[in-house]
């Protein structure tokens, strides 16, 4: 082996554990396909429940956001169930396409909190701006650490990327179809604006979506919109907003605003990027009723139900022609 080649320190890892939390909801397909292409078994943690949250809280600082507590709950589930945990760090994917610093610090947090319990972790660091590391390069380097030949590494990345692109395209199609249907249809349609890990986690945003659907609303998920297009159109809203996921949500919101009857903004308490973005959206994006929800680790849903119900009531009154004509 040449002295500057990367050592294959992960060659003995046969099964890779991935916590079902945070960026898994964005890049899960890519990661899973990638490791399968390298001939590794992928172990995914189970669905979120109360136990996961309790495990996560025990391993987090009180002030952390709900979503990151859940991450460590899911990670804890995987200790012992796999050879090593995949904990990637995403800092940014270009200028004004950053992530919350939480995603950047995950590997070091995992080392500090999980390795004491005997878990082995490994990751990648994606940082276009300062380190000039693209996801492609980061993952191909990772493949070499698994002992893959360069050709295999390139193929694994390509396969994973294409799988993710197919997955994203299907979601984007679903989003634009839903928006189109909302534009023509007569039923109540609501745009649900939340990070993917809030919107699609049954324990966090799932309850809200279920309630909305039970009340007869058609729910459109903003995080499913075509990411690149949404990112571009977010510049109509902000010149300096740093975070890619928030930009995509705003872009999707601007795209679908005319078509829907109302908007629900949901965030996990206390989300840093949302603390500024959702406030700015509520002030500046006008024309449709908007409900801002902050979801905390409380177990009761009665308070949530009241608010969601009354919001849907407002929307259906409006749809009928307003309170005066109802």
């Amino acid at each position: 082996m040449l002295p500057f080649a990367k050592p294959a320190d992960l060659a003995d890892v046969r099964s890779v554990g991935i916590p079902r939390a945070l960026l898994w909801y964005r890049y899960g397909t890519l990661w899973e396909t990638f490791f399968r292409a390298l001939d590794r078994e992928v172990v995914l943690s189970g669905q979120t429940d109360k136990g996961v949250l309790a495990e996560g809280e025990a391993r987090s600082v009180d002030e952390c956001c709900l979503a990151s507590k859940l991450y460590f709950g899911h990670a804890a589930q995987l200790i012992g169930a796999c050879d090593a945990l995949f904990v990637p760090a995403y800092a940014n994917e270009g200028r004004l396409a950053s992530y919350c610093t939480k995603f950047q610090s995950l590997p070091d947090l995992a080392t500090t909190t999980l390795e004491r319990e005997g878990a082995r972790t490994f990751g990648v660091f994606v940082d276009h701006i300062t380190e000039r590391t693209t996801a492609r390069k980061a993952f191909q380097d990772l493949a070499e650490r698994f002992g893959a030949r360069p050709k295999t590494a390139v193929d694994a990345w390509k396969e994973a990327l294409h799988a993710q692109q197919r997955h994203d395209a299907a979601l984007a199609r679903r989003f634009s179809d839903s928006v189109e249907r909302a534009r023509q249809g007569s039923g109540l349609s609501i745009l649900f604006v939340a990070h993917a890990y809030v919107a699609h986690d049954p324990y966090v945003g799932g309850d809200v979506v279920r309630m909305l659907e039970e009340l007869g609303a058609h729910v459109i998920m903003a995080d499913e919109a075509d990411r690149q297009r949404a990112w571009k159109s977010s510049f109509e809203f902000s010149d300096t907003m740093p975070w890619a996921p928030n930009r995509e949500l705003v872009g999707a919101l601007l795209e679908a605003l005319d078509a829907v009857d109302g908007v629900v903004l949901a965030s996990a308490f206390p989300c840093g990027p949302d603390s500024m973005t959702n406030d700015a959206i509520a002030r500046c994006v006008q024309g449709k009723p908007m409900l801002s929800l902050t979801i905390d680790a409380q177990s009761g849903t009665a308070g949530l139900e009241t608010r969601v119900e009354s919001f849907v009531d407002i929307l259906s009154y409006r749809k009928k022609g307003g309170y005066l004509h109802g």
Partner: protein
Amino acid sequence: MVDYARVSMELEKLRPPKLTGTRPARREKRDRHAQTKVAFFRYGYYDIAFKYFTERVLDAEFVPLPPATRRTLELGSQHSNDFVCAPFKHILGDYLEALELGADVLVQFTGPCRLGYYGEVQESILRDLGYDFQMLNFAVVSGKPATEYVKLCRRTVNPNVSLKQGALEMVTTFRLIECLDAYHDAYLSRAGFAIDPDEPKRLQGSFYRALRATTSRAEVEAAYTAGMEALERMPQRTPADPVRVGIVGEYFTAVDPHSNLNVEDKLLSMGVKVARMLNITNRNLRYNEKNLRASAAPYVRYDMGPTSTLTVAAAKKYAEEGFDGIIHLKSSGCTPEIDCMPVLQRVSRDYGIPVLYLSFDSQTSDTGLDTRLEAFYDMISMRKAAPRTARQAADLRTKEGGDR
């Protein structure tokens, strides 16, 4: 009798003495000064650098802000989201007061966390409140070449900004910041032991006054030398082994005394030798992320956030140098610094050094802080005393054994 007398008063040397030499073209020096009134936010003692930057680099008018009051934070909190980080609220309050004082331009910087979005959101909040002003928001041009910065300054503050003078004075501004930080480091290590407890503040005040009046590199250096000499001459009684505390934390809260309710002064008044590596010099002017991170190994593998590497590297350094305690300061909800806490806990475990975690929001009463600091001080000073007595006892025993 004097028939003819004439006094020649050509005092400006406008031509060479040679009779037939070429005359320089008489051209008025272009006045590049702009009347635009520029205001920054309050940030510890850096208002001196902000003033120098405005007057010498931008060549515009600087709006000095009086010390912050309870009203400042109340104003800021009133117009901010509840769970946005505390610096946002402080700065918004500062801006509102600056606009009341007649500022035309507000300045905001950028950073890799929520700070990068501060300027735009604050501008939109202030505009919704009906204020009319320009925003010099460096987030707009971050990551772009330096010419974009110049264009932005020309567009918002002064269309006649001189590139030559600007670049030269920018270097002096950086030097000024280095002087301020170096003085503050010396202040933190000495002020706790002054024989006259009021003298350090007095010296610091006159140093800041001298720096505020500077207009060139030479004056900055002279003021710095004089200030440092005065501080070194200050009569003091330093114990042989003083209690030493290192301060680490978030960029704004750990530095700005109004935001952290004067933690440093409180510690100094207890007779503590304080150190704080976090300042603009170490975080911006002489910052090398990778090398700093290497010094923080094995605690940090990747860049964890804007000040995280510095926080952990400083904590590790204090632990290695045998400090008695570390105080971690941050605004409540600061994600990158929250993520440093588990790492600091690990440093604390490995080196056996106590760490006090303090999180600041929009509270203005410091009684709770006093109690915590006193308890922490008692704990670390007792801890410091304990091993020595134990060691002395052990020494005594061996001596007795030898005698027998």
